[in-house]
């Protein structure tokens, strides 16, 4: 259950941004969770809603955008969103692919007051 550790990092990050912007309260927080980031979105949400209490995020809405695995083929240059975890160009079959998105978790947007 590293989702708890991830949420702790997220809350710390959020607090820093809020401070820099002289905000008193965070009302909405949007994150992007890659399908290959290694966190379970459902667990992340539970962890967030458990830990946000008594922080600057207390009462904040938590929005998760799930990011599919996206690759760019280095041979035919096609960019594809993969449904199956198979690092291979669906168009030409090359395995020489570059990951564009879907392997990381980002704090994207904060709404504050």
């Amino acid at each position, binding site marked *: *259950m*590293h989702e708890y*550790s*991830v949420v702790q*990092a*997220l809350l*710390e*990050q959020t607090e*820093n*941004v809020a401070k*820099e*912007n*002289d905000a008193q309260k965070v*009302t909405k927080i949007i*994150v992007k969770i890659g399908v*290959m*980031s*290694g*966190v379970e979105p459902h667990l992340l949400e539970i962890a967030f809603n458990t830990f946000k209490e008594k922080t600057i995020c207390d009462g904040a809405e938590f929005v998760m955008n799930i990011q599919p695995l996206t690759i760019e083929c280095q041979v035919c240059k096609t960019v594809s969103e993969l449904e199956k*975890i*198979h*690092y*291979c160009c669906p168009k030409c079959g090359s*395995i020489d692919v570059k990951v564009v998105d879907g*392997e*990381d*978790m*980002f*704090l*994207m*947007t*904060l*709404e*504050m*007051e």
Partner: protein
Amino acid sequence: MCQDCGCSITDHIHTDDHSEGHTHSHGDDHAHGHEHSHEHQAAHETLSHNPQLKDSKTIAVITKILDKNNQEAAHNRAHFDKHNVLSINLMSSPGSGKTTLLEHMADMVSFKFGVIEGDLETSRDADRIKAKGIPAYQIQTGSACHLDAFMVHKGLHAMPMDEIDVCFVENVGNLVCPASYDVGSHLNIVLVSIPEGGDKIEKYPVMFRQADLILITKTDLLEHFDYDIEHEKAEARKIKPGVDILEVNIKDAASVQRVIEWIEFKRKMRG
């Protein structure tokens, strides 16, 4: 970051993508000569001191959630690099054979190594390694199911860095959580043992995606299990096309030797 440890890494490496939004407050707590090349400092300043932005309620942040961990990991790597130590993160389920492999390698290697051990509660693994005359440091993670870069930073300062060539990090036994945390190693080795069954690679793609080398261990038990090694290799290469894979059976010294040779090769290829 490490005001207590007196480390003097001057060639500080930044992993944060400076083209991204600047909201991270990193680096400022470095008490010692890190040369930060903060071209983004100015942009940062305008962002937080722009009165117009203070009124706006929505801020695009776009920073990796584990940004702080990643920075510490880069810092750890800089430590290892400075001492010319190759750092290898060993990950697997509990019982796949990480500690046993290290014990056996101790009698066979031509390089010198140390081990940073991660475990929930005990220091049994570190004791096993020390019994082989190998320097080991135990990190007890308590409830944390993985090692992070900050824990490993503590461990690396307990290592005799000038006396070793390779530093293994034996991560907490777990195929999920450790995959998300860069601990500052140069290479990841992921073990999976025959008795765990033939679906582990497909079930835990995030972990196997991290692997530079996959070890299929306990191959002496193959006759007792329905385990199709070639199928597993194919599955692994759907996730990581270029991954190296070796079969290991601790009773077969030649198979352990191949792992050592792989490490030797990687040491040479880093110059």
